[in-house]
């Protein structure tokens, strides 16, 4: 569709003294494409980073790569045998018991419902990939005794406790044929941690595995968490291998089964956001049409001259389509550079915006203080307490390539109709006019 001849003609017509960035229409079209791509790139990079950040945390700390659930109460002997069998598989990095349960926690200053996770005392050594996401905010990660507890920062905040403090917990215990009994226990806070994601932190308390087994005796409470060397590759086959080696009596779930609805919901949100952003790019690409219409008018004389020397309509059309292509490339490049810069520095941009807004708010308050009394306020754009502690960025090169190609194609499409019109111009009509 675009030949080297037409590209040469296009670059020559565009690169004249008055053109490219001195021509307002072309500059407008390039900036239009560039600016419309910025939010698209930022949304793409941030949403990919957020989805990856949240998914990784859920995989490493929440659901693990694989989860083995026994159909019966797993005693120590069966637990050790199952873990030994699972570890014998070449794709398995580690396997460990986990007891899950719920209860209530009390301190002198507060109380809250909590979600217990009982882990081996050397958990952070066994599962190094989980250790990556567990940030110790105070104290030490210690689950060595039966009364050891690690509190998430949110639970510590609600209970208003620090390492060394004691807390009371209440857990429910069921006995066949008898009413449920509430059992009080005391734990010592050894440390306070954060995973960086509010949903995972909100009500979490980590306790020692032996204590967990005593508190939660239900057969469904104990699971085996499995970590793989590569959880993204052939996950179905790896799940099957674990199922096969354990035989009957166990069900095995992988992270994708367990988190599928959450991942799908994130991806749907991402797709809707991208669709809206693509509409903005489409509107911006239409600017190219008007830029080419203006360019055709400016270059009428040249078109007439070229056609009078035998240059065909198709070469003229191709040359103006090439201009759309060049504008598209320049706009896409501008958008990519600015979009990536904005995405990479999004945390700083948000922080700076918050400072500016809050300063402006203070300034208004000072300026109109005798007449207007505003509430004291600290404006926060994104409260990181409820999302990841830092907005992560993921450079999704395939998507960037796809968006760039789509933008350039849209630019070419937008240029086609005025370019076709340029090709149809009659040289005599133009020469008479001039």
């Amino acid at each position, binding site marked *: 569709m675009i030949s080297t001849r037409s590209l040469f003609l296009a670059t*020559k017509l565009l*690169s004249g*003294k008055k053109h490219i960035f001195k021509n307002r229409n072309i500059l407008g079209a390039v900036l239009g494409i560039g600016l419309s791509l910025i939010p698209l790139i930022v949304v793409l990079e941030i949403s990919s980073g957020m989805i990856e950040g949240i998914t990784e945390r859920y995989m490493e700390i929440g659901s693990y790569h694989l989860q083995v659930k026994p159909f019966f109460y797993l005693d120590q002997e069966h637990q050790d045998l199952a873990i030994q069998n699972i570890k014998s598989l070449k794709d398995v990095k580690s396997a460990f018991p986990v007891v899950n349960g719920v209860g209530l926690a009390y301190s002198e200053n507060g109380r809250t419902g909590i979600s217990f996770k009982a882990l081996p005392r050397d958990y952070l050594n066994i599962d190094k990939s989980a250790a990556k996401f567990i940030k110790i905010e105070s104290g030490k990660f210690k689950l060595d005794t039966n009364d050891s507890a690690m509190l998430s920062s949110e639970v510590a905040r609600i209970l208003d406790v620090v390492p060394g403090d004691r807390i009371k917990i209440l857990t429910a215990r069921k006995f066949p044929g008898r009413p449920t009994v509430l059992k009080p226990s005391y734990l010592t806070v050894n440390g306070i941690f954060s995973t960086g994601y509010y949903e995972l932190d909100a009500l979490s308390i980590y306790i020692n595995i032996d204590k967990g087994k005593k508190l939660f005796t239900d057969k469904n409470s104990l699971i085996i968490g499995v970590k793989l060397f590569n959880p993204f590759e052939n996950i179905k086959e790896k799940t099957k291998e674990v199922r096969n080696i354990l035989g009957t009596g166990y069900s095995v779930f992988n992270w994708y089964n367990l988190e599928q609805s959450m991942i799908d919901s994130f991806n749907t949100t991402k797709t809707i956001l991208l669709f809206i952003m693509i509409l903005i790019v489409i509107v911006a690409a239409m600017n190219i049409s008007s830029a080419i219409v203006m360019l055709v008018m400016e270059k009428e004389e*040249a078109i007439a001259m070229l056609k009078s*020397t*035998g240059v065909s309509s198709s070469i003229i059309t191709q040359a103006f389509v090439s201009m759309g292509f060049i504008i598209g490339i320049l706009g896409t490049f501008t958008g990519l550079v600015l979009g990536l810069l904005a995405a990479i520095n999004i945390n700083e941009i948000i922080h700076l915006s918050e400072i500016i807004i809050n300063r402006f708010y203070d300034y208004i308050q000072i300026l109109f203080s005798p007449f207007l009394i505003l509430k004291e306020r600290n404006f926060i754009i994104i409260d990181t307490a409820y999302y990841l502690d830092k907005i992560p960025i993921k450079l999704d090169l395939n998507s960037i390539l796809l968006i760039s190609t789509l933008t350039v194609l849209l630019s070419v499409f937008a240029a086609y109709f005025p370019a076709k019109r340029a090709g149809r111009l009659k040289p005599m009509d133009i*020469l008479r006019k001039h």
Partner: protein
Amino acid sequence: MSNIVIENLYKSYNTGTEKLLILKNLNLTVEPNTRVILTGSSGSGKSTLLNLISGMDNISRGKILVDNYNVHQLDENTLSSFRALSIGLIFQFHYLLKDFTALENVMMPAYMTGMPKAAALAKAEELIVEVGLEARMNHLPSQLSGGEKQRIAVVRSMINNPGIILADEPTGNLDEANSIKVEEILFELVNNHGKTLLLVTHDNSLATRGDRHLKLENGILVEL
């Protein structure tokens, strides 16, 4: 060898209120390698005749054959090829592409119609040297004098080696000294390269330089 045959040609324009008959039953045969000078008063239809021969304008009735091409029966693409390869056009105004250098202006018709870029540049360079403008080759039209621009326009018309050159008052915008220079170059090139020339002019003194002198009067062609 390129010739022009015009048979029973009529050309009229609708001005809105009346029909203006410019050319009336015009017949003409121009043999190859002939230099024809066409004179006539303003508005007599001289330029119109050249535009009809080049296919730039539409005829009302009749037939124009150039190199056996029935010009007004050609489709869009063939008409472009015909204009590129069979005729060279020179206008009163140079119509050089202002963002292109002199060299690029000359090479464009060749390059755009299929000649490889290097060959088109070499050919353009050769022609520019022939008219003594080698020092101005890489200058933009805005950096050239009126006479130089028109000399570039003359060589541009020859880049595709057409058999016929149609020149519409090529010196009409130039002072006397430059007019003489451009005329010299035009006739020299036409002679050297063996072209058929149809030159429209107001200057009767040029008539002596042609093999034939024709005059258009009231839409009718008269051989002088």
